[in-house]
């Protein structure tokens, strides 16, 4: 690799090599042995091309996920590669960040760069494509050609395989839209936040005087840019962090003071990165971790409904699963306790149409049983399908979305 092909991977933070933005772009140029004068010319050009002009001396750790991903793109294009390969580059980005990223790709393509984009949520990228190659589960090509040809020759196969398509293609192919879950009117309050703030060391507040109440049977979606404070607010609601100011009440108690065993029965939290929450060596041990004996029989039906049947998955390592499977396993670990409050950070990450429906079905069951569900997500489709209240969180502040 290197030289003629530029590569961009999925996780923004794991592609940054150097502390400063300009040094990171120059990293690949140095390996090519370019003269310093050329590098001094090429670095600002590459940064301007991805919309990061003026970011040269910024620390890469202080960039948002979307900015880091565009920095990775700058590093990939700076050597002047005629071919770019990108592996699900927008999977971790908020919708605005993803659109900005794809706009830059479109501009590169217009300027003559060959762009090979590997993607399984193709709605946003579909319009960019000149040609589409569809691979089956075995890695064999299923269809190939212009978007029009692929829809004509393999539209049914795509739908059956659960691949997301743009809405206009869906209606062309007669795909039935997902039935949104039905939430009752909000019952008695399950969790309330009263003027809650939280600040990490030496930083402006990540959560800034937030008032929020979620009732029994209610679903609320929380949207907003990366770094807006969604994850921090979620962790405050389930007592994983202690507010710097204000108060959280979970059924009358302060959740950060509850004993762990008690907390786990009353609130569940799905972390954004599945890998950061695995604590066992096999899938079965992972889902049973911390359960009472009488709760264990729940595992088999739950795992089957989430597309992870135990007869096939029980002995596998959580780390060996695909990203989408890891997401469903971590979700099972939360749902299996049937807590009264569910706070889910990006629950649909890596899901195709089929598993997405299964996930919405599972949420419906919990809503019917009276759980309060708060979902933080970049997935605009989920926000639409889940219905209920939608809140936008920016710079630690929550406001209702009309």
């Amino acid at each position, binding site marked *: *690799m*290197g*030289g003629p092909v530029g*590569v961009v*991977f999925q*996780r923004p*933070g*794991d*592609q*940054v*090599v*150097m*502390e*400063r933005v*300009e*040094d990171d772009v*120059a*990293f*690949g*140029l*140095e*390996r*090519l*042995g370019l003269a*310093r004068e050329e*590098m*001094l010319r090429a*670095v600002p050009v590459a940064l301007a091309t991805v919309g990061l002009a003026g970011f040269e*001396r910024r*620390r890469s*750790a*202080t960039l948002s996920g979307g900015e880091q991903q565009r920095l*990775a793109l700058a*590093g*990939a294009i700076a*050597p002047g590669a005629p071919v770019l390969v990108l592996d699900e580059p927008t999977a971790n980005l908020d919708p605005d960040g993803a659109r900005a990223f794809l706009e830059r790709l479109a501009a590169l393509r217009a300027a003559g760069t060959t762009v090979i984009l590997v993607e399984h949520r193709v709605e946003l990228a579909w319009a960019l494509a000149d040609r589409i190659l569809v691979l089956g589960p075995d890695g064999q090509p299923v269809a190939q050609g212009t978007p029009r040809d692929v829809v004509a020759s393999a539209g049914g196969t795509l739908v059956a395989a659960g691949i997301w398509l743009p809405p206009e293609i869906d209606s062309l192919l007669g795909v039935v839209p997902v039935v949104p879950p039905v939430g009752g009117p909000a019952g008695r309050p399950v969790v309330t936040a009263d003027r809650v703030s939280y600040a*990490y060391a*030496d*930083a402006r507040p*990540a959560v800034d005087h937030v008032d929020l109440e979620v009732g029994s049977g209610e679903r609320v979606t929380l949207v907003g840019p990366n770094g807006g404070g969604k994850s921090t607010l979620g962790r405050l609601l*389930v*007592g*994983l962090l202690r507010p710097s100011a204000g108060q959280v009440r979970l059924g009358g108690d302060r959740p950060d003071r509850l004993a*762990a065993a008690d*907390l*786990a*029965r009353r*609130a*569940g*939290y799905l972390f954004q990165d599945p*890998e*950061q*929450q*695995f*604590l*066992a060596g096999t899938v079965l041990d992972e889902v049973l*971790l*911390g359960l009472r004996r009488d709760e264990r029989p729940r595992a088999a039906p739950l795992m089957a409904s989430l597309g992870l049947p135990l007869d096939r998955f029980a002995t596998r390592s959580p780390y060996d699963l695909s990203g989408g499977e890891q997401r469903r396993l971590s979700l099972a*670990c939360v749902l299996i*306790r049937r807590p009264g409050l569910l706070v889910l950070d990006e629950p649909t990450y890596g899901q195709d149409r089929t598993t997405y429906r299964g996930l919405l079905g599972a949420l419906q069951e919990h809503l019917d049983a009276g759980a309060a569900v708060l979902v933080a997500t970049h997935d605009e489709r989920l926000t639409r399908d889940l219905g209920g209240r939608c809140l936008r969180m920016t710079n630690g502040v929550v406001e209702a979305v009309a």
Partner: protein
Amino acid sequence: MIVAPQIGDRQLASLLGRASPLTKLAIGLAWLGLLLVAVDSRPALVLIAASTAGCLGLGGIPLRRFARAWAPFLVAALGVLVVNTILGAANLDAANPTLLRLGPLRVTGAALAVGMALGLRVLAVAAVGVAFALTTEATRLADALVQQAHLPERFAAGALAAQQAVPRLALDLATLRQARRVRGLRGDWHPRLLLSLLILAVRRAGRVALAMDARGFASGAPPSRYRIVSWGRADLVVGAAGLGALGLAALSLLISWTR
């Protein structure tokens, strides 16, 4: 969320910031060498004064910033002072006059002098470290090691990548502990945390290595330089000032020895 200590532009543009990290390293090691052989308050005081003046004058570090970085070591130094004063061997020597009595313990002036010297030595070592840390970015240190000390490129780049990974490990650990708590397990400590942390670190290192190789890191060809570290006037000034302070400290030591 957790951000490594950041070095401001003013510190980077200062004389200490522009001097090669190797110059600072050499001076620092020379100072530490003197502190190692001298259990005496005077040279320690001279070097504390010199590094403070150097940080504020040559390093462009605001006094508050310097004090904040240095303050934790005051506690350590105080501990060293108290322990060595109370438990010092000099207290057992009947020839030494008693300074005060703490119940069964007798404290002598000689033990106090040793305790002070050891405490000040801790502060002096800390002052050297603070001066280096507040004016040196890891990238520049790695550049200097490769360009001026001719260390292998791969070693320096690997060390840099590892240094970037440390703050993320702290975040991983915090999240893993929360993951235990929300599953009803006591979150504070468990051996499994260490294993999960190791797995995360190895997997991330693999991804970073892949990203580095995708940009030609593994090609093996000698790279060109985007950032140049070269010897200059700043090295002369810092070197001369550092050696001057070292000379003064040595002189103060001689004076106390010959008295």
